[in-house]
Each structure stands twice: as C-alpha cells, then as structure tokens.
C-alpha cells in the first residue's frame, strides 16, 4: 500500500511539473499575474509529492519490503539500518528519484524565497525548472520506476554492493546531486533571461547565490568521493581521471568559471553573453554526466546499471534541453550587447583570464574523456586516455591560474596597476620562495615540477591572506581601525579569501600526494617489525571477526616513532557472503601533515617460504590537506553565501521595474 502511494505520488509530481512548466510561462508571455502566480503552488506541490514518494521508497527499504524489485535487488534484511536508508540512492532507479527530488527542492526554494524577483522572471524560472522536472520525472516513471513489484516476493534481497556500504559513499551521491542539480538554477535563470531578452546586474546577483550553493555541494561531493576512493580501494589513490570522475569535475570547473564571470556582469555589466552561455553549459555538463554515467557509453571503473535504452531516453532529454537552450541562445544572444569597456590589466581582465583558463581546462577534460568515443566512431580503433594525458595537459593550464589567482583580487576594477598589485604581494612572493627552497632541501626525489608548484601554493595562500590584510590595513593602521575595517568587510570578500586559501591547501595536498608518496608491499608475519618512512611498524596479530553482514580478518599493526607508540592500526579484509564479494578496509593514522595508510592483502609467503600476510604500507604526505582544503573552500562558499546582499530571499533594494512588454533594451 505504502509503495503504491509512493508510485502514485510520483505520477502526481509529474502532473504538477506539467502545470509548473506551462501555466506560469504562458502567463509571463501574456503578462497575466494570475497565471504567473500558479508557479509557486505547483512547484511546492511537485516537491511535496516527490518528498512523499521518496519517503515511501525509503520506508520500503527500511522494512525490507522485498516485493519491490528495487529493494529486492539492492537491499538485504541483515544490512545495517544506515545502509538500508542510503541504499535507496545506491542504485539507478532510487538515485533518479533522489535527483528529481532535489530538482523539485530547488524549484520549491525559488517559489518560496524568490519574492524579490520580478514576477515575469520568477514565473519563467519556475517554468524552466518545471520542464527539466517533466523530462526527468518521465524518464524515472517510464524507464526507471523504483516502485515496480515482483511476485512472489523472494525471502531476502540481493544486498547492496559492499563497496557502497560505507559512510563516505553513502552521502557522496546526495551531495553530488545537489551540486549537479543546483546548476539547473543558473540554467533556468539563463533561459528565462534569454526568453525575456534582457540581462543586467540584478540578474547576475540573483544567479550567483544559487550557483554558489551548487558549487559548495559539488565541491563537497567530489571531495567525499575521492576520500572514499582513498580509504576504500586499498592503495591510497584518490583521483583516477576516470570518465565518471571527470563528468563530475567538468561542471565544477565550469561552475567555478560561472561564479567568477557573474561577478563581472554584476559589477561591470560586461561578459553577459558569455555568462549566459556558461550558465547553460555548466548545467549541460551536469546532464551530460548523468547521461554518460547511466548509458554505458564509456567504460568506467564505477559500474552503474547501464542500459542503452535509457541512454536513448536521456539523449532525447539532452537534445531538447541543451539543444533547445543553445538554439535560444543563438537567436537571442546577438540582441544582448555587453557594454563594458575593459583594460586587460584590471579586475575584470583578471576574471576573464580566470574564465579563459577554466574553460580551457574544462575543454581539456572533456576532450580527454570523450576522445576514445570519437576515435572509435571515426575508424573503429580503440584508444585509452588515461591519467598521464590529463597530468600532462591539465597541470600546465592550472599553474598559471593559481599564479594569477593571487594577483587578481588585488587589481582594481576598470584599470589597475599591475606593478602596484605585485608590489603588495611581496610577502606572498617571499613565502613562495621560502617554501620552494624548503621543498628543495627536504624533498630528495620526486618530480622537479613539484618543487616550484609547492612554492606556487604558498604564493597563493599568502597572497590571498595579504589581499585581506591589505583591505583591513593590517599593521599599517591602528588596531581599532583594522578591526573596524575587518568587521565592515563584506562576507563575500571573506568568502573569496577563504576559498582561495582552501584552493592553495588543496593544491599542496595534490602535490604532496602525487610527488612524495612512499610505498612498501611485503609479506609480514606475527611479531615482525620493519622500518617504513621513519616509523617502526610491527605486525601484532591477526584475528577473525564477525560483522553485521560480513566476516572479516583484522590485523593489528603497531606504529611507533622513536620508541613511542603512535597508533595501533587495524586494517581489515572483509567478505560479504550475500554478494560473495571481498573488500579491503584500509586503516589510516593521520597526523594532519601526512597519513600512514595500511591495507591488508591476501595470505602470502615470505621469501623464506613461511606463511604470512601481504601488507601494503603507504606514507601519504599532505593528503589530509586535500580534505581540509576542500572543506575550507566549502566554508568560503558558505561564508560568501551568508553575505547580506547575496542571501537568498533577503530584502534587497528593488531593481527598477521594467514593465515587460515595453522591454528595455539590454544595452
């Protein structure tokens, strides 16, 4: 019964989406306030229906209702409750339901908090959200219905892939989806603006917070995903340039570009056409990700239930949404001349450089991800584009971006003094050189590029801090003056500083992890000790333990430094009998400067031919900074989001009303 309610609510959500997609839009075109007003209740209803639907599916999982195919295929009665719940989105059908739920949530948020938007824009934005909702609700209902029944119901389910039974991966999809789907707001605003034929500073100001929300969550989702890969896959890697990772990274890169170009629109009324295009492309890349992950178009280590028929359905959705919006763009964009004059050396010049480099980086990842498909289509031959390609092409694009990232915020709008800005970065330059020299001394091997790159990370970190110090006149004015200035600095300025510092931290983490990782693979016996990366590591014992839905062999390994015990690590090798699948659970001791990472392999023989266990030891310098830096970037985003003037729904000075119909030419 509950399952049928969920199914029915999903159908009702589609009906609500149809209303939401049509009535407000027609109302906006005909300038009828009552029709436009339908947008709010229909968006709210769509969200409520989907919330009910999602709750019903979750209920079916919690009570292990195996008469539902989806529950049967992805759950098991013995599974811990947490993973019963997270199992809802650990499969294709359930994750689609989550996807549309989040989409409806964003639609409902505009409906609730979009009171400060002009009625026409709001109605159009809600309608465009409605269209996306229709497309994906239809996809879910007709090709991926999670509420299908099976008769007779089996006694127990097939269980969830044990690799997914993990706290890191449990919350990775929801965060990623909020990110992906969040960019639909920027898309809807862009399409609405194209329909209206006008874009102004106010538009950019409304788009930015939504983009920022999506960006914060996408950052978190990507970081969580690579954290999971790091501790779960058992060899300390955290990024593989796999197609599925790339498709989440591309919207992030372009979304970052969008965040920056929207500032130019807001401040200088320039880059309008480009910003609208970015907004469309960012969400298009999110959709592309959904398509690639679920269609089986490319081979990836992250298997999802793939099905070419579903692929065709999503491709049709892509053709309508992306193709339609780009066609609209082609028709309308020439009417929207941007006005701003800008000099290359200026804040907006810096932001243009940021956009150039981020867009090129996105194009690189895009080309690398899809090139095997292109080659295969052209001559049938097969090609692999793996990490070496991305390292060789992506890094040279990012390094100038990082270098410029410290300078940009110090440049004034319109026309800036580059020499002056560089002069104010003397501490950053000093710190960069210092770190470079220190790295040169301590790092005895590893790629040479890592050494200047570390200096660059320090340059960015101190550079971001100096920009703040500059603005509050730290040490150059009386302390009270500094405090007053610090308190009056807008939160968005703090957000930028924090996010840039986070980027510097992440960068250091990336360099450390890829340049100076140490590894030891050996067979150890009980009581055996070795010296590894300056630590004394002793294999204490091996024990068999029983988990809730797995059995495991757990080693106890003592890590000591200078005779003092630092940690006893307990890596496990688990076996999940229902899926017949083994997993490794690495044990990690972090000092926040580096990780000691131990994974357990199979039984093996020592060189002397005695039985022991294969142990993999990794010393991962600076890896914790990856997670810390990502978190700092997210905090930067949240701080910026809390800015009074960006806060969603905060009272703002009403923009001059432009009665629709008598449209003011957008310059």
């Amino acid at each position, binding site marked *: 019964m509950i399952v049928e309610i969920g199914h029915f609510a999903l159908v009702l959500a589609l009906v609500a989406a149809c209303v939401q997609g049509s009535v407000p839009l027609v109302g906006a075109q005909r300038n009828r306030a009552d029709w436009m007003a339908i947008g709010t209740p229909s968006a709210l209803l769509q969200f409520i229906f989907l919330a009910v639907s999602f709750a019903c599916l979750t209920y079916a999982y919690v009570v292990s209702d195996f008469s539902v195919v989806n529950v049967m295929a992805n759950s098991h009665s013995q599974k811990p409750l947490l993973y019963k719940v997270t199992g809802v989105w650990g499969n294709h059908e359930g994750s689609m339901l989550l996807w549309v739920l989040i989409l409806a949530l964003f639609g409902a948020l505009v409906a609730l908090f979009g009171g400060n938007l002009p009625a026409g824009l709001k109605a159009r934005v809600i309608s465009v959200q409605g269209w996306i909702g229709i497309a994906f609700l239809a996809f879910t209902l007709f090709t991926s219905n999670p509420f299908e029944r099976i008769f007779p119901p089996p006694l127990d389910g097939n269980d969830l892939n044990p690799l997914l039974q993990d706290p890191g991966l449990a919350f990775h999809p929801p965060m990623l989806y909020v990110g992906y789907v969040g960019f639909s707001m920027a898309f809807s605003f862009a399409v609405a603006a194209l329909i209206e034929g006008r874009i102004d500073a106010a538009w950019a100001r409304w788009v930015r917070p939504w983009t920022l929300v999506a960006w914060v969550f996408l950052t978190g989702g990507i970081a969580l995903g690579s954290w999971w890969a790091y501790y779960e896959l058992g*060899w300390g890697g955290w990024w593989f340039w796999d197609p599925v990772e790339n498709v989440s990274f591309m919207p992030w890169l372009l979304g970052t570009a969008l965040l920056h170009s929207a500032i130019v629109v807001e401040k200088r009324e320039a880059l309008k056409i480009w910003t609208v295009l970015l907004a469309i492309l960012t969400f298009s890349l999110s959709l592309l990700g959904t398509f690639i992950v679920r269609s089986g178009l490319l081979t990836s280590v992250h298997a999802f239930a793939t099905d070419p028929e579903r692929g065709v359905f999503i491709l049709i959705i892509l053709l309508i949404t992306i193709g339609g919006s780009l066609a609209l763009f082609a028709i309308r964009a020439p009417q929207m001349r941007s006005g701003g004059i800008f000099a290359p050396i200026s804040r907006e010049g810096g932001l243009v450089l940021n956009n*150039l480099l981020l867009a090129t980086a996105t194009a690189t990842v895009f080309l690398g991800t899809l090139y095997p498909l292109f080659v295969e289509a052209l001559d049938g031959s097969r*090609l692999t584009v793996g990490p070496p*390609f991305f390292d060789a092409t992506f890094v040279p*694009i990012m390094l100038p971006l990082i270098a410029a990232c410290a300078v940009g915020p110090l440049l004034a709008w319109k026309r800036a003094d580059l020499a002056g800005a560089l002069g104010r970065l003397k501490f950053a330059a000093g710190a960069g050189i210092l770190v470079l020299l220190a790295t040169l001394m301590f790092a005895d091997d590893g790629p040479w590029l890592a050494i200047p790159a570390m200096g660059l990370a320090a340059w960015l970190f101190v550079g971001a801090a100096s920009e703040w110090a500059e603005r509050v006149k730290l040490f150059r004015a009386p302390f009270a003056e500094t405090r007053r200035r610090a308190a009056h600095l*807008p939160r968005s300025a703090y957000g930028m500083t924090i996010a840039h510092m986070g980027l510097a931290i992440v960068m250091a983490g990336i360099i450390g992890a890829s340049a100076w990782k140490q590894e030891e*693979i050996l067979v150890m016996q009980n009581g055996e000790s070795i010296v590894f990366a300056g630590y004394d590591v002793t294999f204490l014992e091996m024990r068999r333990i029983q988990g809730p839905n797995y059995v495991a062999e757990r080693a106890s390994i003592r890590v000591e430094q200078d005779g003092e015990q630092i940690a006893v690590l307990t890596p496990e090798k688990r076996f999940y009998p229902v899926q017949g699948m083994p997993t490794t659970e690495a044990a990690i001791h972090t000092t926040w400067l580096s990780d000691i990472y131990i994974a357990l392999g199979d039984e*093996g023989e020592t060189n002397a031919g005695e039985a022991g266990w294969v142990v993999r030891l990794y010393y991962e310098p600076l890896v914790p900074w990856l997670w810390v830096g990502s978190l700092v970037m997210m905090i930067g985003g949240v701080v910026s989001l809390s800015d009074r003037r960006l806060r969603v729904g905060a009272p703002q000075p009403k923009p*001059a009303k432009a009665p629709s119909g008598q449209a003011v030419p957008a310059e």
Partner: protein
Amino acid sequence: MRTLFAALACWLLVVPAALAVQPDEILADPALEERARDLSKELRCVVCQNEAIDTSNAGMARDMRVLLRERLVAGDSDDDVRDFFVARYGDYVLMNPPIKASTYVLWFGPAVVLLLAAAFVWRAARRRKATVTPAAALSSEEQARLDRLLSDRDGT
C-alpha cells in the same frame, strides 16, 4: 545476452583475486623495480574497465606485470616494453595516448582552443575600446540602478 556473456567472460578472469602488485612480483633491483612500477602505471589492464595494470586485481593484469618485469630483466628499454604490449593489444593498452595523426586534436586541441579564445577576447577588447564612446548609452533609469548596486558594495 551476448554482452552479458562477454561481461561474464571478463569477470571470470578477475576471480582469482589478488590486490594489485604482490610482494612476490617485486624485483630485487630497486632501480629496475621503479621502472617497472612506472611502466605498469602506463599500461592498461585489458580486461578491466579503465584501470592500469598497476592497481588492477585481475589475473591478466598480474600476468602482464610479471611479463613486463621479465622483459626489463632481459634488458628491454621502456620503449621496447611499450612496443611489446602495443604489438599485442594496440594503442588501447597505453594509458598515455601516443602523439600521432589521429590524436593531434586530443593533444593540441586544448592549446588551440586557448589561443583562439585569447585572440578573440583580445580583439573584442580592442574593438570595444575603439568603438564605444565614453558616454555609453545608459538610460537614466539604468544609471540610477547601477549606482545603487555599486554603492551597495563599497571599496570593491
């Protein structure tokens, strides 16, 4: 159904699971072993989905790791080893696509895109400078709104 079987066939090779590089594979000579590790990160496991043989658990990946070490011990250069596998599996086996006619777009595309975009921005900036008169046509209404917006954020 056919693809299912093919998938099964691939999985079956994976079954004798062992996690990536095993201690018994490691060469005694550290310099040679380091070369072997670097090479094994560049070679794709042909039965896996987009994974290098270095990290793959597949039995065939292990065979390839052992084989590539044998080649190194026998005195092969890194290029010899790459050629050895390319002769059997084609360019597909290389994680790093070789630079040749069919990959020019891949390798040089991004740089070309960057240059074209930079040239476009440069021209657009210069043209605008030349054509837009300082008294850019803002209506008084728009000017007022712009002022309000800009005054909101002082000092930036």
